[in-house]
């Protein structure tokens, strides 16, 4: 039997590498939105949640208010609460240690962790996934904002602006299998489209969350 820890390390490395194009695109998006390089790095270290970072910077880039940017990002990161509850039994340790490793509570680290069933291996997978994504995501952000960000036409010539909707689509894709999720998404899209011409930028994205009402009934 292969060593389960080495399998977890491999998974952690692949999932970290898969965030690199997204991280580059995030750095580029920050530069295009007029952010300083250290602000882009601040998002990737302090917020550390790809879709939330993109949402917040997207709202700022569209001229939205700070409050709307924080709300859009925070609603996306709300799912971390569920991950934390799922993984809490595997993450036993001193308070300071739990406080430290909680920063890595994201989709990717959770995905690597739950690919194992044993609590000790889950903890190993969580730490490996978290470390791999944290290092590669931040490195990609810096390269994106410093090396690619100032070349504005490069972004459109290489089609890098399309990586953002593609990444969001890839993140929601597995959810399409569930009818309740599909209903929630359909209502969310309808709300977003209806509000786009009339509401300030960022608001349609936050309001789309009301789509969950369509997912809750009959479940």
């Amino acid at each position: 039997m292969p060593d389960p820890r080495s399998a977890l390390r491999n998974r952690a490395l692949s999932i970290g590498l898969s965030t690199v194009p997204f991280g580059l695109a995030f750095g580029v998006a920050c530069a295009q939105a007029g952010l300083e390089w250290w602000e882009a790095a601040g998002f990737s270290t302090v917020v550390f949640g790809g879709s939330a970072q993109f949402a917040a910077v997207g709202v700022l880039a569209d001229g939205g208010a700070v409050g709307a940017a924080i709300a859009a990002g925070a609603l996306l990161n709300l799912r971390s609460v569920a991950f934390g509850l799922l993984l809490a039994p595997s993450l036993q340790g001193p308070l300071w240690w739990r406080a430290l490793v909680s920063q890595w509570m994201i989709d990717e680290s959770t995905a690597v962790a739950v690919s194992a069933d044993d609590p000790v291996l889950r903890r190993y997978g969580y730490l490996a996934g978290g470390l791999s994504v944290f290092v590669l995501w931040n490195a990609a952000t810096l390269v994106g904002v410093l090396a690619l960000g100032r070349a504005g036409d490069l972004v459109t010539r290489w089609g890098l602006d399309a990586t953002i909707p593609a990444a969001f689509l890839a993140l929601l894709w597995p959810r399409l299998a569930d009818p309740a999720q599909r209903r929630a998404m359909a209502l969310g899209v309808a709300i977003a489209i209806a509000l786009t011409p009339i509401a300030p930028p960022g608001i349609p994205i936050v309001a789309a969350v009301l789509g969950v009402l369509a997912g809750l009934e009959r479940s």
Partner: protein
Amino acid sequence: MSPATLTFLGLGLLSYAFKAAGPLLLGGRRMPRSLERLATLVPGPLLAALVIASSIVVDRSFVFDARLAGLAAAAIALRLRANFVVVVIVAAATTAVARAVLG
């Protein structure tokens, strides 16, 4: 402080509270089932709205350009079970080609 700095500090604080809630406070207990259900549903409509906002919206109007070709190509790649990296590269390449062709 600039709006971007305020945003990453505020969002970072909130995000950390969400991430750490389980490991720090709840230990092995579970959250009420209805709340759990709500938490699993929220990302879907939000991500769907983000797809719309980042592909066919500029300011407050709808613009259909080469990005839409990239998004369609991404959907096909996802349908074919391509992994994340491939999906993103396919979207970028398709958009680049569509833009070159359309001018």
